[in-house]
């Protein structure tokens, strides 16, 4: 059974278009024939294979992507060489160059985020049309670093600052620190450059190094969060399992099977303290952190201030009060159970506005990504 058409089209569409582009330009020759054979093989695999991952793996491991790209470059190169062989003057060379830029310019006309690229390309075209010779055009482009700007220097800094701001809005401190360092590196490299824009290759090396440096930091951060989150959940569920509302709570309800529901509740009553003890041991083994360390730990404080602690303050305090009682073969005191019931019945268990941005951060995000995109994602109108 063939790969689903929408996936095959999505993966092969670009290659089909590239092939058609060469057909329209009346390409021919050995490399072109090999290109057609490569595309035919891709199409054949789309019909023979029945899942997307096999298809994707085959396209890569048979080298079809790279072969197609190389052959396309070879055919396009041969056609360009023939065309340039007909060009006998610098004026014709300049005209060819400017025509290519003018054609590309249309792609960036209505893209506000690509304004920098558009402006640079326009600058190059205006320079070329100013009556100077081809070598003078080339020299001035180099002198002004216009090719460097085309590599996307100005856009990249904006993108970095946006990403840094995004991490700040969503309280992602490790990513924020990384982006802050990356912006500093960007500016330092830009300062060293004659055109106030960093060498793209050098910058990318620095980005690779920084990603490598921060990956374990992020992993540890995430693991610590998961660790204490699990401890809080075990205690919260344990206390609630003794509440009068437990038989109706989704955590224990087995649809259409009240016996199973009661069994689920009893299991939590009896076993969560044992689970908690083991989880605490693992948490300590991993990070040398204990229960008492959680609430002043940077990970917890960050999540708390970011509004990502689901429990209300009252529920959190109740969890802390419950903790010393959550030991194997023990039960919580009646007053704590009553408190849990009161919280549940009056719906005070959840932090108000948890997992929502503050008004100030919503505005910052909207300024960052634009009103249209913001409303599309969040579905609310900002006044």
């Amino acid at each position: 059974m063939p790969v689903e058409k929408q996936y095959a089209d999505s993966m092969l569409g670009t290659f089909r278009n590239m092939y058609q582009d060469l057909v329209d330009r009346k390409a021919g020759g050995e490399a072109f024939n090999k290109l057609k054979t490569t595309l035919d093989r891709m199409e054949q695999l789309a019909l023979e294979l029945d899942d997307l991952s096999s298809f994707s793996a085959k396209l890569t491991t048979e080298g079809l992507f790279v072969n197609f790209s190389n052959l396309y470059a070879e055919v396009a190169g041969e056609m360009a060489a023939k065309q340039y062989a007909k060009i006998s003057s610098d004026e014709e060379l300049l005209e060819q160059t400017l025509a290519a830029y003018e054609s590309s310019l249309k792609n960036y006309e209505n893209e506000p985020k690509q304004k920098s690229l558009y402006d640079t390309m326009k600058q190059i075209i205006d320079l070329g049309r100013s009556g100077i010779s081809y070598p003078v055009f080339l020299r001035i482009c180099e002198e002004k670093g216009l090719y460097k700007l085309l590599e996307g220097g100005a856009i990249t800094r904006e993108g970095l600052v946006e990403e840094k701001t995004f991490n700040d809005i969503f309280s992602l401190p490790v990513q924020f620190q990384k982006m802050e360092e990356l912006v500093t590196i960007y500016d330092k490299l830009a300062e060293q450059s004659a055109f106030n824009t960093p060498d793209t290759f050098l910058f990318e090396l620095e980005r690779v190094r920084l990603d490598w440096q921060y990956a374990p930091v992020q992993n540890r951060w995430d693991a610590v969060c998961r660790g204490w989150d699990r401890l809080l959940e075990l205690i919260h569920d344990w206390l609630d399992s003794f509440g009068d509302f437990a038989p109706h709570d989704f955590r224990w309800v087995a649809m259409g099977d009240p016996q199973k529901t009661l069994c689920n509740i009893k299991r939590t009553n009896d076993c969560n303290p044992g689970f908690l003890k083991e989880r605490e041991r693992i948490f300590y083994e991993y990070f040398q952190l204990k229960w008492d360390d959680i609430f002043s730990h940077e990970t917890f404080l960050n999540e708390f201030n970011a509004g990502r602690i689901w429990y209300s303050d009252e529920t959190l305090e109740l969890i802390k009060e419950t903790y010393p009682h959550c030991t194997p073969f023990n039960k919580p005191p009646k007053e704590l159970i009553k408190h849990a019931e009161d919280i549940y019945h009056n719906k005070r268990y959840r932090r108000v506005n948890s997992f929502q941005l503050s008004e100030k951060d919503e505005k910052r995000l909207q300024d960052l990504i634009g009103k249209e995109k913001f409303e599309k994602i969040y579905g609310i109108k900002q006044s």
Partner: protein
Amino acid sequence: MDQRLQEYLDYYKIRMDKYKDHPLYQHSYESEKKMYDALNSCENLEEFRSKLADENLPLKNAVALTKDKSLARKELYENIKEVVRKKAPEQILAMIQTVQSVNELTKRANEIEVAIAIEISIDLLTSYFYSDFMALENIEVWQNAEIPDEWKKEIHEEWVNETIAEGKKLWKEVMVPESQKWQPDWKFDVDLIWEDRHRRLIPVPDEIVEKRIQQFKTYRGI
């Protein structure tokens, strides 16, 4: 000197000077300098065009730039112990000695990058181990939890055995076949976990990693 020739000379000087004294682009500077010196030694543009073609100076420029970038990448990957990623610039550095055209250089560099990208993807399958930590922790908790006797069969035995059975099934029926689409004889190599590029991403002490490796082997039936 012919004005057009002087204009070209000014252009090639700018190209040369942008690499001057740049620690990353020493070979590119030397190559651009040869281009500039070649032009400077010519009486006219036709003579320069012949020299360009005869000495294949554009290819030498492309090779020099590729060499500079590959050396930088190789040094970075060496410093951060990314031994698989390092293979691409290493192989490119070996290849550039033999190319005859810019097209061939581009083509063979692309082929090397794709081949190494596949090796990197396969190497990254080592992350199956850390991805399994949640399941392994669950198993350890269920096996060791202090719980009343009435629950021991269900939790110590049934939950543990069912989870391990599912883990083995998924590994055998899905994860290994999927991985073997990229490398037909792929098998998980536990020794890779200790390689710096993998170990540094697991935020727990060595003795825990040791323990989890044994649990992982049981869980996945390796």
